[in-house]
Every structure is written in C-alpha cells, then in structure tokens.
C-alpha cells in the first residue's frame, strides 16, 4: 500500500545542508573510526551518511540546527585545540550519567545529537566488525538461505 514518506512539515521548507557543513559532519563520522581503531572502509559509507543526515532532519527539523551549529562548534574546537585533542574532548569527555532534557552546553548538544548518533550509525554500517561479530543491530546481515553461510556467527562454527 502506498504510504507517504514520513516528513515533518517544517522540514519540507528547509534548504539542504551546505557541502561545507556536510564535510565537517563527515569528518566527525570518520573520526569515530580513528578514535576506536575501527578497521572498516569508511569511505564507502559517505552516500549513506548523507542520506542519514537528510532523514534525521526530515523526522525532526531541529536536527538541522544541531548539524549546522554542531559543525561550527567542532570546526572551532579543532581550530582551538587541534584535531586529535578536539575529538578526544568530543568523544571522551563524557559525564558519568548520560544527560537528558535540554542540553546544557553546545558540547553536550554535539555529543548527544552528532557524536552519539554517528557512533551508532558507524557501528551499524560495519564498524562493529572490528569487535569480532559478523552481524549487528542495524546492519543488513542478509537472509537465512539454505546452503549459504548463516548471516550471523553460528553455534559450533
């Protein structure tokens, strides 16, 4: 049955992200792999990453703001501290208890809506494989087909 793609009415009025913003967000996404020594081929995810950004905005228009400001924030942070220290702060300087409600700082917003979400996406696209499994929540492992290897680690194999 034909169902319209879910898109917030305010999102429909928004202009797309600029290439510069997308490039910065992409760098954060790439940095996830550097931070945790992931071995997957990140460049192959670029197109799907861009689709992801569009969809997040389509579901919730506030994400456009998170992305635009988050990109500026991270660019400034990198300029101030250098790339590695900046990403260390973004990914590692986390409170003990995950915050909720309105973010208290721009760092917190960048952590919750950029870093944390990019981590989930990166792992689901294939980053998880660096930790020993062959399927993962959010990864299209494939169908259960007779005569072909099971799309997850099988008992006894």
């Amino acid at each position, binding site marked *: *049955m034909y*169902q*319209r*793609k*879910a*898109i917030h009415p305010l999102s429909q009025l928004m202009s797309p992200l600029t290439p510069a913003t997308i490039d910065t967000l992409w760098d954060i996404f790439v940095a*996830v792999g550097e*931070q*945790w*020594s992931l071995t997957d081929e990140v460049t192959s995810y670029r197109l799907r990453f861009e689709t*992801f950004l569009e*969809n*997040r905005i*389509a*579901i919730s228009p506030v994400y456009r703001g998170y992305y635009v400001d988050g990109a500026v924030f991270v660019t400034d942070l990198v300029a101030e501290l250098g790339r590695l220290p900046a990403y260390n702060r973004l*990914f*590692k*300087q*986390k409170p003990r208890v*995950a915050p909720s409600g309105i973010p208290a700082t721009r760092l917190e917003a960048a952590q919750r809506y950029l*870093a*944390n*979400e990019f*981590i*989930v*996406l990166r*792992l*689901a696209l294939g980053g*998880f494989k660096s*930790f*020993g*499994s*062959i*399927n*993962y*929540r*959010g*990864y*299209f*492992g*494939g*169908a*259960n*087909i*007779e005569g072909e290897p*099971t*799309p*997850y*680690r*099988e*008992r*006894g*194999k």
Partner: protein
Amino acid sequence: MKVGTVIIGSGVAATAVAQTLLKADSQASVLILEAGVRVKTKDYGLWEHYLLTRQAPYEQYTDLPYTTRDIKGENKIAGAADVTLNGARVFAYGGSTLHWGGWSFRLKPEDFYLKTNTGNGIDWPFDYDDLERFYCDAESHLAISGDSADPLLPRSRAYPFRKFPFTAMDGVIADAMEQANILYSHMPIARRGVPVHSSPAAPAQPGASTEPSRHAPCQTTGTCKYCPFGARYAACNYLDDLTEWNEWPGLSVRLGAVVDRIIIDRKRKVKGVTFWDRETGDLHDVEADRIIVAAGAIESAKLLLRSISTDWPSGLGNGYDLVGRYLVTHPYFIFETKFPANPKRLQAEMDFPTLVSRHFDSRAEQERGKFLLVAPPDAISFNLAEALQKGHSRQKVEELLVGDANRVRLHGMIEVFGQAGNRVKNILNDYNRIGLPMTQVEYTRDDRAFEERMAEVQSKVVPIFAAMGANLTEKPTISWRADHAASVCRMSKKETEGVVDADLRVHGIDNLYVISNAVFPNIGAVNPTLTLTALALRLGEHLSSGGGA
C-alpha cells in the same frame, strides 16, 4: 449503512477472518472498524530513528501508565498493583502485531485439558488434533520460520520457511542446558524466509513455501520491532494487500472508528454497532447481519459488557456473569547474574531469540504451572554502542567485552490460572487517548504460592547457570504486563461455564462472535498469537461454509 459482517478491530484476528471470508466469497460484504489510526510502516527515516532511540512510531498508541499521586495516567488497578497495561497492547491499524516479537508456538495437547489434568479452570471444547491443520494454515499466514523436524508436537505440514540456526551466543546456553539435561529447540518465529525450489526430482516438503512473495524476507537486520522490510508479520501490511486494489468490492476498512456498543435487536440477535468517528465526533450506526469482535482480549470483553439491553442487562453474553472474568496473563521473568569471562567475544548479533526450551512446558509441570525458557538474543549483556558512547577507550571497550563485567540472562514465562475474581471492567464516562472507555483491572493473587513456584523454577534454572560457570543467587525480575491478557470471554461447551461456544459464537446469541485471546480457557506457557491466528482461520472457514449466521 448496512453490511453483511462487521469486524471490530484490525489486528491479526480480524485480518485472518476477513481474508478467509473474502477468499470464499469475493463479493462478501465486510466492514472492518478500527478505533486507531494508521502507523507508517517500513519508513527508512523512522527506522533510523528507531535504531538510534529504540522509539517506534506506534508507541503513542498504547495505554498510559496508571495514575500515580502526581501524574495523571489512564485506567485503574485494584488488587495486585503490577498487572500493567502500559505498553501491553497497541491501538492502531494492524493492532498489537505492530509491536509483537513474533514468537509463534503451538499449544500442547495437554493444554486443551487443563481441568481434566489439574482440576483448574475448564477444558477447551476441542483439542490439539482438531486445531492442528489450522495451526499449519496459521504458520503460513504469519510466515513462520521454524524447525519442521522438531519432535515435540505432531504436525501434518512443514513450516513455510526453514528454521534459524542457533547463534554462537546461544551455544553457551545450549551447552549448559545439555549438561543440565534440559531439552531445547529452535524458536518458531514470525520472520518471513526465502522460498525453496521445488522440482519433480527434489520436491519440497508439503507446507514449505516455494513461491516468492511481494513481502520481503528477513535480512537479519536486528531491528525487529520496526522492521524496515516488513518481514515480521504485522497485520496492517497484509490488510493493505486486501484493500490496495479494491478487488473485493464488499470490503471496507474504516479507521478512527471507535465502537461504543453493539446494537441489540432481541435476545438472540444483534443487529449492528454504534461507533463514533474520531475526526468529526459524530456517532454512526451500522446495521449488520453478523458481528465479529476482534478487538483484543480486554477490549472485546469490555465491549460486550457495555452493550446492554433489557434482555442483556449485564452486557451481551453475560447471563452467567462471566464476561471479563478469569483474566490471566503471563508473568514474564528474567534471571540474571554475572557472566564469567567472554573470550569468544560473544555479542548480540540478532534481535529475536533463536533458542528456546519447552522442557518444562510439560504435563508434569502442568499442575504447578508449566513454563517456557528463552535465550534472549542479548543473553550476554555487552552493548557496544553504549560502551563507545560512554567515552571508553578502545582498550577499555575490549576489556568490557571479553572480561567478566557482563551479565548473562535467561528469560521465560509461566502459566498462572484464572480466578473468577480477576477481571476487567469498563470505567464508563472516562475515556483514554484513543477514545475508548478506560479499563479497570481487578487482580489478586496468592503471592506466597507464586513465590514458592518461582523458587521451584529458580531451582531448575540454577543448574543451567552453573553449567555456564555462573552463579545464580538473585531472584528474577518479574513483569505482569498484560501483553498476553486472555480468558475474559472464555470458550466452553456449557453456557454456564463460558462466554462463547466451540465455534466462538457467543452463548445465547445467534450472530455474535468473539475472536481474541479472550476466548482461550487457558493460555499454557506460550505466546498466544499463533493459536489466535489458527482460531481465526477456523472461524473464517466455519462461517464461510455456512456455519452460524
């Protein structure tokens, strides 16, 4: 407006009945009335949102929690305070199959004879053998992947799709069960598979699916509760098939139609329903030759209770004060303890369980309460995304993965027996967000007896943990959420003992039927949906072959 059949509800029961009626008579006049609205399924953006937040777009269509001192909620509970409705069911097009896990077990032969075997409750008015071929049809309808060679139950046809092999993580529990001499098997799961090729030289087993489908097979994506492929059966996706091309001219589906009451003609006959339209607030009457209530256990009972007349002052079919009574659900338990080191790096690779034990779902356990054990897909608790989001270093993440910081879990559910005093009622004039009258749940239990039983269960489960090198000492967490609410319009031979007969026709009324978990006299140790689907297909066949009104 006048139609042949009104079906109240749009979940799997409604869909299976409607499909059967229409296949037998393409001109059949069928009106499906659903109180809820449509939830967008298979939307990629909503799927990504679910992946990130575990929030699904149907969650707003469940009951709110009970009111607490400070926060207004919905419904009322009297008695045991933890038979919760919040999250138990979904009021939307497609019903609770929007959120179900797809565990699709057949009841066992002894489940049909609870009274004979244990003195509890009443027997079903038919048994496993009578229902067996409908179980086969139901497994096809729901697109079940299962082990056709499982010796537990006799079956006349194969599952449509092959079983999912055990995962590496299952291996830990399977090995432990073997050591503890506990039998285990493959979870029969509603995940569409891939058809097999059949040729004269190598014919497929009868029942096995050989034809490709428009519906996609499971791609082991691991986001089952909002499957981007629609591989986990959700009734809305199949009702859509029926309505897509208007090829059944007599079929219509109306959403946002809240049925207030069934209109009674005379003692043995109902003649329609009154519903109000959510959009406009207007009340409408529909006349029908026959009414099928498929509104889920609790709402089906409540609808009968609030449909009154001089002949039925306590509600339709309620001449013996049984409607709404004998409420049961499955207490769902989780045993958990520390897991010793994880050198094999076992992590959750799937989102549905593949290993189950029906060892204690047996005649021997029936008197005390038979129970199911399930190895959850995340039996070992390590969560990779969380570990990274917490800001741990790679090294620390590795330690968390392979070290002894993880927990190991075993899930299960257990049968409890109905009591007359455990019931659901309407709270008239107080409406929930969907527009239906709120629910009053009255439930008490013998806490001591239940604790004793759970201690017995624990003693049987401890050896499994021990065989894994884990020491289970803590009591389980137990949820009494009403997902499997049942028996509130139970089936019986004698009208003094139940609400519907063996054909699901309400005792004392010629043209009113109930198809819901409500009709189960008891639910055994297993999820009810497969049996519900079998009963629905059976009802459809019965009505199509001239049985009943």
